[in-house]
């Protein structure tokens, strides 16, 4: 345990004058799991890529020493460095879909590594690939060898990536956000797999992640990175019990914990007409086949969903990717045409309305999207973006009133009034999400569909946005349909939870009940898969 595999001393990476990684030093011991934690843009991925010299040419890397098993990596010529990448250091990336060559069979992509680094015979190669695929627990490895990446599921692709990284039998495996692109249940499987393999081979694992909860289940030692610098470095135990640096404390405090919901006061008030009532809502996509493209079957994206949502409360819609939760959200505001089902808003059935009435009524449900960068027209001023709904629904409103409303909205989402005259690209992700919320609030909606509004944001920002949403609910009594895959966030904000699986709601109940005494087996798996900080 005391043999150092990798020693980094005084590593600095600069793009032009901009120091992205600034004089950092750390060691990784043989057989341990070392986690480098930080928010987006902190330079953690750059650090890993610079150790492997995989950065583009315009990056300037300087360091006192980078030693791999006492050999200085910086003094090795490029040609010989190829014998280190893949052979002695393996690397796994975040997105397995784009990281695999789409036009090469996975068998070939794995054998390629062994062909470079070992002189195996044809037969040995076959055998080795087989063994690897079995080791990463891919079902039916014989068949999979000849398949292409797009034929595999997300989890299987990441397993292939791991197989590629393991093919050179590396001493050190770098895993750069290995599970961020995956669903919770699959994330748990992949992490378990990494642990097993590490135990079997005794290699070191360098885990790079933004997710402290995940890190707590994996790491032996933790380094926290902020703006290119390592601000805290120590064993996992030390870190989670007595972190010292204010930034580490801030990160830990921002973590949504599954328990916070217990002392939440629900303001559901007796028997009144629910704000939103949805009955056997369906969204089907036709599957066309044959010469005349006849519809032979349907993809049942949302298959007969019914629920109610009370005024001033939050219903969380939870499920993994592809379960139909986003389709349901968009279907409710008619961004996607629904196949069947009835929707009542305040007791008025939406499908019975037409023309302008429908437009007005429908605008009482608004939406906030996941990606704050894609959800605003980059060529419009923030003020115009917020005022867009006002112009559309109240064309008779005069300019002064509108401007006043825009600035009061900006105040509500805690942005300065001068933001109205700036463009979206001048704002950070969290600030953009605030603008999106202001845009939705502008038309005084009764219900806001929040489609994963926090999953593109860093943890600390995530907590702020959730705080803002809660405040707005308290002040204005707006209801949320909160679509998310993140159960920890659910605990933080929701009054009720509906769990979606394959287009249907399999469990619906209060937060306490669903999170603490789940009834449906799928909910249980989902809850078990969530990494929780182990103290």
């Amino acid at each position, binding site marked *: 345990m005391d043999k150092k595999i990798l020693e980094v001393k005084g590593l600095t990476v600069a793009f032009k004058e901009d120091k992205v990684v600034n004089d950092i030093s750390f060691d990784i011991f043989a057989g341990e799991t070392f986690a480098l934690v930080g928010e987006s843009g902190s330079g953690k991925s750059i650090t890993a890529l610079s150790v*492997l010299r*995989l950065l583009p*040419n315009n990056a300037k890397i300087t360091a006192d020493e980078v030693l791999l098993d006492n050999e200085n990596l910086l003094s090795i010529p490029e*040609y010989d460095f*190829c*014998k*280190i*990448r*893949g*052979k002695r250091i*393996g*690397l796994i*990336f975040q*997105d397995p879909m*784009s*990281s*695999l*060559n*789409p*036009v*090469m069979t996975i068998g070939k992509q794995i054998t*390629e*590594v062994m062909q*470079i*680094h070992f002189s195996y015979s044809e037969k040995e190669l076959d055998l080795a690939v087989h063994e690897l695929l079995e080791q990463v627990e891919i079902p039916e490895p014989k068949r999979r060898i000849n398949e*292409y990446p*797009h034929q595999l599921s997300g989890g299987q692709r990441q397993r292939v*990536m791991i197989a*590629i*990284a393991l*093919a*050179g039998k590396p001493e050190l495996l770098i895993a750069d956000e290995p599970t961020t692109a995956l669903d919770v249940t699959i994330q748990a499987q992949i992490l378990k797999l990494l642990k097993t393999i590490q135990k079997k081979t005794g290699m070191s694992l360098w885990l790079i992640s933004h997710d402290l909860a995940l890190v707590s289940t994996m790491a032996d030692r933790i380094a926290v990175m902020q703006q290119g610098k390592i601000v805290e470095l120590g064993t996992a135990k030390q870190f989670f019990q007595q972190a010292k640096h204010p930034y580490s404390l801030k990160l830990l405090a921002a973590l949504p914990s599954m328990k916070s919901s217990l002392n939440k006061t629900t303001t559901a008030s007796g028997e009144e007409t629910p704000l939103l009532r949805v009955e056997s809502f369906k969204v089907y996509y036709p599957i*066309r*086949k*044959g*010469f005349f493209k006849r519809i032979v079957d349907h993809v049942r994206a949302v298959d007969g969903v019914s629920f109610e949502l009370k005024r001033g409360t939050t219903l969380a819609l939870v499920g993994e990717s592809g379960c139909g939760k986003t389709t349901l959200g968009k279907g409710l505001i008619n961004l996607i045409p629904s196949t069947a089902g009835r929707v009542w808003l305040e007791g008025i059935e939406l499908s019975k309305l037409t023309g302008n009435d429908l437009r007005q009524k429908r605008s009482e449900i608004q939406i906030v999207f996941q990606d704050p960068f894609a959800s605003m027209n980059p060529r419009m001023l923030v003020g115009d973006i917020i005022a867009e709904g006002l112009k559309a629904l109240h064309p008779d409103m005069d300019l002064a009133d509108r401007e006043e409303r825009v600035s009061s909205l900006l105040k509500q989402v805690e942005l300065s009034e001068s933001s109205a005259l700036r463009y979206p690209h001048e704002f950070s992700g969290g600030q953009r999400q605030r603008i999106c919320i202001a845009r939705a609030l502008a038309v005084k909606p009764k219900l806001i569909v929040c489609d994963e509004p926090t999953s593109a944001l860093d943890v600390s920002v995530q907590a702020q946005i959730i705080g803002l949403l809660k405040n707005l609910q308290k002040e204005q009594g707006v209801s949320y349909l909160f679509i998310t895959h993140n159960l920890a966030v659910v605990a933080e904000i929701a009054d009720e939870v509906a769990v979606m699986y394959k287009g249907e709601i399999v469990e619906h109940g209060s937060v306490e009940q669903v999170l603490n005494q789940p009834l449906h087996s799928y909910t249980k798996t989902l809850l078990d898969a969530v990494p929780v900080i182990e103290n």
Partner: protein
Amino acid sequence: MIQYILRRMLYAIPLLMGVNILSFILFFVVNSPDDMARMQLGQKHVTEQAIQNWKHQHGYDLPMLWNQQEDASKKVTETIFYKKSMGLFLFDFGVSDSGRNIGEDIKQRMWPSLSIALPSLIVGLLVNISVALMMVLFRNTYLEFSSIVLCVILMSISSLFYIIGGQFFIGKLLKLVPISGYDTGFSAIKFLILPVVISVVSGIGAGSRWYRTLFLEEVEKDYVRTARAKGLTETQVLFNHVLKNAMIPILTGVVVVLPLLFMGSLIMESFFSIPGLGSYTIDAINSQDFAIVRSMVFLGSVLYIFGLILTDISYTIVDPRVRLT
């Protein structure tokens, strides 16, 4: 797949109808057969009788779209539109205004066209890809910079200057190959070298620049980083991974034009007096032979549509992600 191809072929019918109607409007409605007759007969003062004779000879003495005098189905069939268009669908191109059998001409002339167009395409493709790969391999160096500059300069020169210059320096001054002409069989080769070389050189600028951008687009993708992380050298990465992916747009782009190669190249053929379909078309344009030009329009669109179908099929072959339904 077969269903897909069949459906695409059915879709070709309305397309070809559209082409036909368009060319019909261009040729017969804007200018009446009377105008054409005057044009063909050439003199300023032509007798009415001469015009009528010419029209009768060439089958232009029928009504345009609707024959009131005939009965039943003949109302439609005994018209200029039907007579001059329906044959095309059966690849019966009829007789040119100067009295030659167009179908025969095409059969005879498409092989010289192909013998110049195909080598130009293949050699050009190889040269452009190699140049582009070189540029990508040496990216961010002075070699790349100077090649890009050279490419821009090359593509800023009109193809006419390449031809004239090539003919003058290689053919006339150095006397390495004959300036122009054609021969049957293998003796044609010495006539083909110069046009092929010239068309390759004139295409290098634009072609290799385009391929370079395709390669660069691939180089920036994540799987290339994975390949490097595996320990592949830069050349291995380029040849084993980047080239394979970039070949998809390149190949499918080439497949579209493959059938059109039969049509030949207008300019090259007329400069080098090669008796292909390109020079055939130019001659027809210059002698204002409408029947030939219309046949070539139709043939061209058939080949283009065929090329589109071939492209879709070739996608399924080179790209495992694409499946036709």
